[in-house]
C-alpha cells in the first residue's frame, strides 16, 4: 500500500501507547471477572443445547440453578452431573429442561471433572477448528472470485426462510457477504432464543438453528457461484459471548463485535460488556472469524466532521482490546462511515481523508466502511448518487468490507431490487475506477492531507484526556458519542461475577493465546 498522507509514525505509535494505557486497568478488571453470559457460552461449548417447553434455553436454566455458586464457574457443575449420572450431554440437556437440578449431585473429584470437561471441550473445539479449515479451503478453492472490497448486503425480513431467498438472490447479484440483521431489541434479551424463527421486527432472531439454515443455503450459493459467501451476525448485546460460540459452531465468518458499542448505544452495563467482549473475541479469534466494530455509530449520533477523532480513538481502543483477546490484525474489521452532511463544501474530501487515514494506520485490517444513512432522505434518486460517491471513496482508499448503501435507506428494510441496484452501482463504480487509487497522490498542503493530520492530532489529545481520567470514567462523563453511562447503571450488571480462586473454565484455558 502506498502511503499518501505523510502521517508521522511517531504520532501513530503514541496513539497505540495511549491505547495500551487506556485499556490496561480495564483488562485487569476483565481478567478478574466472569459473567452469566460467559458461563452460558462456555456451557454451550461443552454440549449444552436445547430449551424447555416455555422456550427457556437450557444454558439459562443452568445459570439460574447456580445463582450464588458461579464464582468457580458453571462448567464443573454440568460436567459433574454428567460424571455422576454417566449420561450424554444430549440426555442431560433434556433432563435439565424437565427440571433436573445440577446441584443435587455432590461435586466429584476435581481431577475427574477436569479430565471429563477437557474431553468435552476438545470435541467442540475440534468442530470449530474443522469449520475454520473448511472456510480456508473454500477461500483457497475460489480465490480471486470475491470482490475487493468485499461487498456486504443485509437481509432483514424477520422470517429465516424468506431471508434465505433474499440472501441467495443477493449472492447471485454479486454480494460477497450476507448479514442477517437481528430483530430490534434482541441485543437486550439475556438469552438466545431457540430454533428456527419466522417472526421478527426489522430483522430476524439470531438463533443457532437460523445460523445453520442460512449457512447451508449460502454454501449452496458458494458452490453454484464459485465464490465463497461470507455469513455475518451480531455478537453484541447481553449474549455477546454466547452468540460468538454459536457462530463458531455453525461457521459464521464475520461477527459485529465491538468492545464499547453495547455500553454506549444499548445502555448495557460497562463492566458486563467489557468482560463479555473479551471472551466473545477469544472465541472469534479461535474460530478465524473477522470481527466488525461499530465506530460508524458514533457518527449517527454525533457530527461526522467535529467528532471524527472519536472514531479513530475508538479504532485504536478496539484494536488494543482485540489484540488482548488474540485476534490478528487481519481479523479486525475496524469500522467507520461515510456520514458527513452532503451539503458541506468539500465534505467528500474529508471523507477521503478519514478513509485513507484509517487505511494507512491499520494497514492489515479489513476496514469495515458503512454507507450514508443519516442524510438519506427518502429521495431515492439522490440516494443513488450519495451511494455512488460512497462507493467511489471506498475503492479509492482500498477499504476491506464495503457495506452496500441502499437507495431506500430511511424508507424500509431493503426490497430485493434495492439490493440488486446497490450491487450494480458498486460494481460499476469500483470496476470503472479500479486503479485510480494507485494513480493519484494528494498534495502535501492540500485539504485531504491537512484534514487527516488534524484528526490524528485531535485523536491523540482526546486519548490523552481519556488516559488521564480513565476509560470507564470518560464514558461516565460522556466523552464518547456524547452519551453518559454511569458504571453502576445499565442492563446486565446482575450477571457480573468475581472469579474465585478455584474458577475453572476449560474453554477459556484451551483457546487463550499463549
Amino acid at each position, binding site marked *: 500500500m502506498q502511503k499518501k498522507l505523510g502521517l508521522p509514525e511517531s504520532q501513530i505509535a503514541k496513539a497505540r501507547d495511549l491505547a495500551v494505557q487506556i485499556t490496561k486497568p480495564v483488562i485487569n478488571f476483565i481478567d478478574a471477572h466472569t459473567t452469566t453470559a460467559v458461563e452460558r457460552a462456555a456451557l454451550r461449548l461443552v454440549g449444552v443445547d436445547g430449551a424447555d417447553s416455555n422456550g427457556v434455553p437450557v444454558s439459562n436454566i443452568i445459570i439460574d440453578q447456580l445463582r450464588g455458586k458461579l464464582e468457580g464457574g458453571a462448567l464443573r457443575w454440568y460436567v459433574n452431573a454428567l460424571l455422576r449420572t454417566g449420561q450424554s450431554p444430549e440426555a442431560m440437556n433434556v433432563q435439565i429442561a424437565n427440571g433436573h437440578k445440577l446441584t443435587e449431585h455432590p461435586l466429584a473429584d476435581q481431577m475427574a471433572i477436569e479430565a471429563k470437561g477437557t474431553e468435552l471441550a476438545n470435541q467442540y473445539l475440534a468442530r470449530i477448528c474443522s469449520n475454520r479449515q473448511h472456510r480456508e479451503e473454500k477461500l483457497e478453492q475460489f480465490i480471486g472470485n470475491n470482490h475487493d472490497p468485499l461487498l456486504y448486503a443485509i437481509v432483514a425480513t424477520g422470517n429465516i426462510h424468506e431471508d434465505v431467498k433474499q440472501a441467495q*438472490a443477493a449472492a447471485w447479484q454479486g454480494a460477497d457477504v450476507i448479514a442477517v440483521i437481528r430483530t430490534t431489541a434482541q441485543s437486550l434479551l439475556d438469552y438466545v432464543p431457540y430454533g428456527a424463527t419466522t417472526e421478527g421486527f426489522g430483522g430476524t432472531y439470531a438463533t443457532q438453528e437460523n445460523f445453520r439454515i442460512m449457512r447451508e443455503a449460502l454454501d449452496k450459493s458458494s458452490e453454484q457461484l464459485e465464490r465463497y459467501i461470507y455469513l455475518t451476525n451480531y455478537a453484541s448485546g447481553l449474549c455477546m459471548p454466547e452468540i460468538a460460540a454459536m457462530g463458531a459452531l455453525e461457521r459464521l465468518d464475520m461477527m459485529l463485535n465491538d468492545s464499547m458499542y453495547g455500553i454506549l448505544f444499548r445502555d448495557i452495563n460497562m463492566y458486563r460488556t467489557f468482560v463479555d467482549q473479551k471472551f466473545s473475541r477469544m472465541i472469534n479469534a479461535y474460530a478465524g472469524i473477522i470481527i466488525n466494530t461499530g465506530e460508524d455509530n458514533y457518527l449517527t449520533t454525533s457530527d461526522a466532521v467535529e467528532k471524527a477523532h472519536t472514531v479513530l480513538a475508538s479504532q485504536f481502543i478496539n484494536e488494543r482490546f482485540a489484540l488482548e483477546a488474540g485476534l490478528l490484525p487481519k481479523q479486525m474489521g475496524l469500522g467507520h462511515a461515510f456520514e458527513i*452532511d452532503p451539503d458541506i463544501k468539500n465534505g467528500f474530501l474529508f471523507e477521503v481523508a478519514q478513509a485513507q487515514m484509517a487505511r494507512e494506520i491499520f494497514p492489515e485490517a479489513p476496514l469495515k466502511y458503512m454507507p450514508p444513512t443519516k442524510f438519506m432522505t427518502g429521495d431515492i434518486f439522490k440516494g443513488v448518487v450519495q451511494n455512488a460517491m460512497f462507493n467511489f471513496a471506498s475503492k479509492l482508499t482500498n477499504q476491506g468490507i464495503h457495506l452496500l448503501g441502499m437507495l431506500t435507506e430511511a424508507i424500509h*428494510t431493503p426490497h430485493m*431490487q434495492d439490493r*440488486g441496484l446497490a450491487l450494480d452501482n458498486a460494481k460499476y463504480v469500483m470496476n470503472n475506477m479500479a486503479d485510480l487509487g494507485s494513480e493519484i497522490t494528494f498534495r502535501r498542503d492540500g485539504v485531504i492531507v491537512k484534514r487527516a493530520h488534524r484528526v490524528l492530532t485531535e485523536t491523540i489529545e482526546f486519548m490523552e484526556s481519556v488516559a488521564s481520567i480513565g476509560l470507564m470514567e470518560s464514558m461516565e462523563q460522556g466523552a464518547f458519542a456524547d*452519551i453518559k453511562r454511569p458504571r453502576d447503571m445499565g442492563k446486565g450488571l446482575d450477571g457480573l461475577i468475581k472469579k474465585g480462586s478455584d474458577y475453572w473454565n476449560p474453554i477459556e484455558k484451551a483457546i487463550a493465546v499463549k
Partner: protein
Amino acid sequence: MFIRSYGDTIDDGAVQLSFTLPVPCNAKGCEAARQYAEKLGFSHADVVHSHPLSDGYSFYVVYGKTKVSVDYDQIQVEEATGDKLYSMETACEIIRQRIGRKVVIVGACTGFDAHTVGIDAIMNMKGYNHHYGLERYSEVNAHNLGAQVPNEKLIDYAEKINADAILVSQIVTQKDIHIQNLTEFIELIQSKGLREKFILCIGGSRIGNKLAVELGFDAGFGQGTYAEHVATFVVDRLLARV
C-alpha cells in the same frame, strides 16, 4: 381543478414505475410486466428496462399513462402546524413574553425500537439538516431519554419533571409494530389519568399527523419536519391554555 401527473405535456398522466416480479427475466417476464402495468390502470405501458435479480426474480422499469385525476380544490390536509412556523428565536421570544417560564419537553424512542435518529434530530443541540434541536432553545428544558425506553418509564419521568409535552419517536414500522406500541402508550397514560396533563406528540419518518390524531395523540410529525414544527405546535397549544 382536476389534476394528473405531468410528464412533458399538461394532463399527459405520465408515471414511472419500477418493481420486481418473481419470475425469470425473459420475453415472457417483460410481457408479464407490461400486462401488470396495464392492469394497474396505465395505458401505453412501456417496459423500458429489465434485468435479472437471480434465476427466479426480475426487475422492470416501466412508463405508462393514466387517466386518473384528483380534484385539487377538494384536497384537505391535516398538518399539525399548518403553514405557521416559528423560528427558534420567535418561539423563545413568545415563551418569554407570554408563558413566562421555561417549557419542559421530554422525548424518547419507546418500546423495542432502538433508533435514536428521529428523537435526536428533534432534540439534540446539534439538530438535523441545519435545524437546531430543542436542547438549543434557551426557553425550553429538553430531556432526551434515548431509545428503547419503556412507555411507562417515559410517562413516569414526564410526571416527575412536570413536563408540558411528551414526544414519542417511532422509526421501526415493520408489521405495524409502532401502532401497537403507540396504542399501548395512550392506553397506559389514560389508565393513569394523565392524558390531559400533557401535550402528546409522536414523530418518525413514517408517521403523520393523521395517524397521530387517530391514535389519540395531539400531533404527529413526519418526513421534512424539524424542531421548529414541534416547538410551534407545543407553544401554540400552551398559549391556548393560558
